[in-house]
């Protein structure tokens, strides 16, 4: 029978499991993101560097292509921690750009017309709401960070001999852990800016500002006051420090792993607090 003829009937059947209900939010957010052409274009653009890296790996593993060249050249073509760090640095920039484009549309539409009361009057907690919204962004950012990174490592492992995989297993673990930390930070920044800034353009600018302006400020603080605590407000340097430690590469000068981790933890805590203050079902005037 047609819906308009049937009339309203109260549903009394079985309910969906809790996790299935929560997946509605990331699915819906993902649908919204995929409708934005500019996000799709940037996603395609961010695949260029992994493709170039894949080509590099291919060349590095086919000695017959550069057999006439000297030994220094073969060192340059080594697939090691330095290679993966370069890959991570470039892809992290793309991930920030993607977050600046996609992030602002995640929470602000719900906040704009006091829609949060409708979400939180349903069996969903604030933490679950944040995690569900974050999941869409994490999925998007994963596509340009650790997923292509793992593909590159698998490709290298397949082309090189088993000894390479045994000697460099740390690269895989470091890449995944390092990018997970990074993606979590970027997603938190994007959500917090979406929660606090109503206008999408400005919210996007805030995301870019957090990473690039704050990093500049950190470097300036270190240079002007001749201190090292400027690193605490430099997300790019802190993340790079952690990646270096994970990859077994040399840490940047003047930065310890503890400082880098403390810096990231501090930023994460502040961003979580910003979200907690903003994402409430009702504004309480005390």
């Amino acid at each position, binding site marked *: 029978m047609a*819906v*308009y003829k*049937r*009339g*309203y*009937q*109260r*549903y*009394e*059947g*079985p*309910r*969906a499991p*809790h996790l*299935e*209900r929560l997946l*509605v*939010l990331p699915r*819906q957010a993902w649908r*919204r993101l995929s409708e934005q052409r500019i996000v799709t274009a940037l996603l395609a653009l961010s695949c260029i560097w992994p493709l170039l890296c894949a080509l590099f790996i291919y060349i590095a593993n086919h000695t017959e292509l550069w057999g006439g060249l000297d030994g220094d050249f073969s060192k340059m073509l080594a697939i090691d921690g330095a290679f993966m760090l370069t890959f991570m640095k470039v892809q992290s920039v793309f991930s920030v750009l993607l977050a600046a484009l996609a992030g602002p549309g995640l929470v602000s*539409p*719900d906040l*704009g*017309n*006091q*829609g949060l*009361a*409708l*979400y*939180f*009057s*349903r*069996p*969903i907690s604030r933490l679950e709401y944040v995690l569900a919204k974050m999941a869409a962004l994490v999925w998007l950012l994963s596509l340009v960070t650790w997923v292509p990174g793992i593909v590159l490592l698998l490709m290298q492992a397949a082309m090189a001999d088993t000894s390479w995989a045994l000697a460099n297993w740390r690269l895989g673990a470091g890449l995944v852990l390092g990018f997970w930390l990074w993606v979590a930070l970027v997603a938190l920044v994007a959500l917090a800016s979406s929660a606090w800034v109503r206008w999408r353009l400005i919210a996007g600018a805030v995301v870019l500002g957090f990473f690039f302006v704050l990093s500049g400020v950190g470097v300036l603080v270190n240079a002007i006051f001749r201190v090292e605590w400027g690193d605490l407000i430099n997300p790019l340097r802190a993340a790079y420090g952690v990646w270096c430690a994970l990859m077994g590469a040399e840490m940047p000068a003047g930065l310890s792993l503890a400082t880098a981790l403390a810096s990231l933890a501090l930023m994460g805590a502040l961003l979580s607090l910003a979200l907690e203050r903003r994402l409430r*079902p*009702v504004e*309480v*005037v*005390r």
Partner: protein
Amino acid sequence: MPQPVVELDDLHVSLGRREILHGISCRLGVSGSGRAIGLLGPNGAGKSTLIRTLLGFHTPSSGRARVLGFDCHKNRRRVLERIGYMPETDSFVASMTGVEFLRVMGSLSGLPEEIALEKAHETLFHVGLGEARYRTLGTYSLGMRQMARLAQAIVHGPELVILDEPTNGLDPTARRRMLELIRQMKDDHGMSVIVCSHLLADVEQVCDEVLILKDGCMIHHADLEAERRENRRFVELEVEGDSTAFAAALEAVGAVCVAESPGRFRIVLPLDFEMARLWKLAADHGLSVRRLTQRRDTLEEIFMKAMGLLRQTPGEAASSQEAPAYGGL
């Protein structure tokens, strides 16, 4: 055993250092009976705070609030699975279409995916938004958005629907439609409904019981249905002619009759007394009936009395000999 829809036990709620609800205790409604409960009170009485506490938005500082047998704080998820909430403020997600909005809200409340879509369409037609269901909510008029908010509250078929000022800002036709939908919710679908409103006429029209709050305290809880039933027995009568014998005849059939002045009576009729008998009795004594009024203790009077603005309802003095006013005001 039927349980109350809402059970408050010495409920105290504080926001910051200020206590908003000061020890409210009561039992409202009966689950599954399809009754509507009106929540009344002046601004700042604590109505919204009470509703938000039931929804788990505020934590009680002491005491307990239970909805459908579950503690609102400790079993928040189980409570919210059974509730539909229509907020007072204009709440919507402007970029979603009506169907998408209801589908998401239904799914979050536990409807399986394919059923959520079906229910979204069904509910939108039910509230009169069938033709506008593929338009984004941002393009809806105020009245349409109000209906969309009602739709999201009932899309998952909750046992209890909480409506905060449902008729605010609606034109008379839309208001009538909203009240009719509320009536259908309780009568046709067996949902319990809590209506929080400043409009006494609206509450009177759809509610079976009322809770009146003032300054964070419960000052009256009345069963409107019982009150209406009781009120049918009180009659004010004005007749022309010699009424002495008529008064005696009324006493003889079991009525309590007080003569206010010659020809003017306040009468408490016995139960099961047909009004036609009163007309016949007057005719038998050769009296012409000039005025016959059945006392109707309006919600406005109940509210005014609860607020301390009215000492007694007209006709209450006569009735007090037989039956005390309901709710013990």
